[in-house]
């Protein structure tokens, strides 16, 4: 099977000389379609940096990132931003949503960028919001939703753009463990039912349990990979 994402000798350094930080140091990983992968490691180990590289938000110092064999590390500017819009779904730890747009409008926004006609946008948004359990809350502003609900909107937004992969950087970090688990279960359902490929980072052992594959990073290096059946 062709991988969705592949990294080769990926390196990202910050600073120089004495203060040089190797946030990523020769990382070679591969994500296959349909995986539900967790990147785990302590704080500062390089999880966010890795997701930024995979998502085309930042440029590596060395090595490359291939999305379906296409090297994203060679794109820039508008090409890269269009690429992210069409191929990558993002869920961040916080501040995901535009505060002045309702849940539905937040999801619509990304499809607007994609140039999808209004009628289709509306239809897809409503069904997606229902799928993440937000039926009846479509017109609420982010401020009128709980933290868990806001993250669900973020998941819905990532889903409606129909990307190749959804990257979530510690999506549960700001949620209590119960809500966090529910969010993760919902993502897992989407992974199983819709076949969406997810990569998320966490340092919470309970969250890791849910992953079908684990990539352990420490000091910018992948120290271990683990596949589970479950």
């Amino acid at each position, binding site marked *: 099977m062709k991988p969705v994402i592949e990294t080769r000798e990926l390196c990202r350094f910050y600073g120089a000389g004495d203060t040089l930080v190797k946030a990523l140091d020769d990382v070679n990983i591969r994500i296959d379609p349909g995986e539900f992968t967790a990147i785990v490691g302590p704080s500062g180990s390089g999880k966010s940096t890795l997701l*930024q590289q995979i*998502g085309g*938000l*930042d440029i590596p110092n060395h090595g490359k990132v291939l999305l379906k064999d296409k090297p994203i590390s060679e794109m820039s*500017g*508008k090409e890269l*931003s*269009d*690429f*992210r*819009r*069409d191929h990558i779904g*993002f869920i*961040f730890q*916080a*501040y*995901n949503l*535009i*505060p*002045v*747009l309702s849940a539905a*409008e937040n999801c*619509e*926004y*990304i499809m*607007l*960028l*994609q140039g999808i006609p*209004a009628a289709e946008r509306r239809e897809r948004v409503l069904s997606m919001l229902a799928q993440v359990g937000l039926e009846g809350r479509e017109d609420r502003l982010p401020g009128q939703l709980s933290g868990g609900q806001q993250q669900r909107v973020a998941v819905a*937004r990532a889903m409606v*753009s129909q990307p190749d992969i959804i990257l979530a950087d510690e999506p549960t970090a700001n949620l209590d463990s119960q809500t966090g688990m529910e969010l993760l279960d919902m993502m897992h359902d989407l992974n199983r039912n819709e076949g969406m490929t997810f990569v998320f980072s966490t340092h919470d052992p309970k969250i890791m349990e849910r992953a079908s594959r684990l990539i352990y990073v420490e000091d910018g290096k992948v120290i271990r990979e683990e596949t589970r059946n479950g």
Partner: protein
Amino acid sequence: MLMLKLAFRNILRNKRRTILTMLSMFGGYVLLTLSISVQNGSYVQVIDFFTRDSTGHAQISEVGYQDKPTLYKSVPETTDFYQQLMQVDGVQRATPRIVSSALAYGETKSFPVQVIGVDVEKEARMSFLEEKVKTGQYLEVGPDSDGYYSALIGAAVARQLSLEMGDELILISQGADGSMANDLYRVVGVVGSTEGAEARNVYLPLAAAQSFFVMPEQAHYWAVLTSDYERSDQLSQRLNSWLDGDSELEAVTWKVVSKEFYETMKADVEGGYVAYYIIIFLVCIGVLNTVLMSVLERTGEFGVLKAIGTSPGRVFTLIVTETLMLAVLSCLAGLIVAMPINYYLAAVGFVLPEPMEVSGVIMSHMKGLWDVKTFMEPALIVIGSAALISLFPARRAAKIVPVDAMRSL
């Protein structure tokens, strides 16, 4: 639509700041509108008065006369010519004049004067000469019982030559045939003040001037009025096409006739722009400050927007749109306030505490201008400068790097 909604809701986010920004644009609009109204209103008044009183909106003269007025370049002054002239489209009034210099003698002294021969009746209908008679009365068409033609003299002439009503005035000059011209006239009135433009003038009935300068059935020019000085160019074009058969004669507008006056008016108008620039500058500072603040505050948000695929151009457009919306709303609010005030200014106006001289015309009462331009121009200025000012913060927002922006969250 969603982008407009987004822009609109964004401007409602920080209400206090929005209100402050709008107040500065609103105030700028109202100030600009009213000052432009009064300034242009007074220029309209001055130009209107000047052209009606002195030059006409256009003049017909012999080719070359306007560049170098001489006694010898003349136009026909016949009933036939007048009737045909009045048939030309747009011509409302016309009057012939003879203009030349002479030496005036009172009892003991002499004084150089400008002699202006006017058609007594047509002149009264066209200029303000009759209204400007301070003492005495207006001209008579024909000679009095003693055979004297009447003369109106400027205040400086009256003072220099110690002339009073009923006194005799002697004029000496040269006729168009090269002969020596001299004649006696009866002073019937004094026009204007010693400072006014007519202070050194002597006005004679046309027939008197024609015989004095030996110009039978001739004048130096016809001053022509149309409905409005703004139509002067059109008027002179029509006159020229009417004159087409006559290569000796031409029509020119007041701008050519009195270049000096026209240039001073233009310079005065440009001088008035300084005040506008100051208002615009203050508005711009207010706008720049708030737009920059609102961009900086939303750095993280723009980071996320860009991360999920919003192009730099779209972020840029969003900021400019937000600013434009604010500007348009402010101008609309300004329009609501400026309209009644300007209506009052245009309809009633106000009396100046002290009369002011503008290019030789004394003004004591100022009026505003009620037209589309007066309201549109300031709106375009405010909206345009707000848009221009927003380019810098917009560029800044467009250039935000998602990773950096989100790290700062």
